[in-house]
């Protein structure tokens, strides 16, 4: 399962994509955030960190499944 990163999050993680094996993969959006924040403490310095599931903003309790397109959305700054 792949997670996509953009902007400053991509810079912190050092890659635009991470592969997770099924075993270590968290069950929910909240679980994924906990895992990423532990692994990459610099993400904690961002004013927000959203997760998108299948191109839509996800809520914390949403469950993740193998076929989801998952993306980490740091604070947006378009316009």
């Amino acid at each position, binding site marked *: 399962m792949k997670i996509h990163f953009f902007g*400053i999050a991509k810079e912190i993680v050092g890659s635009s994509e991470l592969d997770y094996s099924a075993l270590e993969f968290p069950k929910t959006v909240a679980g994924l955030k906990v895992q990423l924040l532990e692994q990459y403490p610099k993400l904690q310095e961002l004013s927000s960190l959203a997760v*998108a599931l299948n191109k*839509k*903003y996800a809520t914390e309790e949403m469950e993740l499944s193998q076929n989801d397109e998952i993306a980490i959305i740091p604070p*947006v*700054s*378009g*316009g």
Partner: protein
Amino acid sequence: MDINIKIVDQIDCTRVYEDLSHPGSGGVCVFIGSVRNTTANETVNELFFEAYEAMAISEMEVIAKEATAQWGLNKVIMHHAIGTKKIEEPVVLVGASSAHRTACFEACRFLIDTLKERVPIWKKEFFDNKKVWVTPHP
């Protein structure tokens, strides 16, 4: 409902009237965002924009539909550029046309304000001796 949404390499400001004019519209309102040469008194040389393209398009569609429903618009346009952009280059173009001007003025403001809040696009500023991803303060 007529919605025109794109992520592009370069914004074309010359076609916007054609894109928004409509027989039922008595007003067209457009906002164009461009690259400014300073941020907090520091000289900016250029900007770089990155997008999560598929999601950016679908979020802009949601915003355009919300605006159309709220203000009864005839046409909506939302274009955003990606890649390196020099000073004075346009980077975002949003606009609306409607029967009367109040609706398109208000809708245009909503389109750009909501795009900046919600659409997954990121801006990096290049200064003389540093480059930083812009992270708006909460």
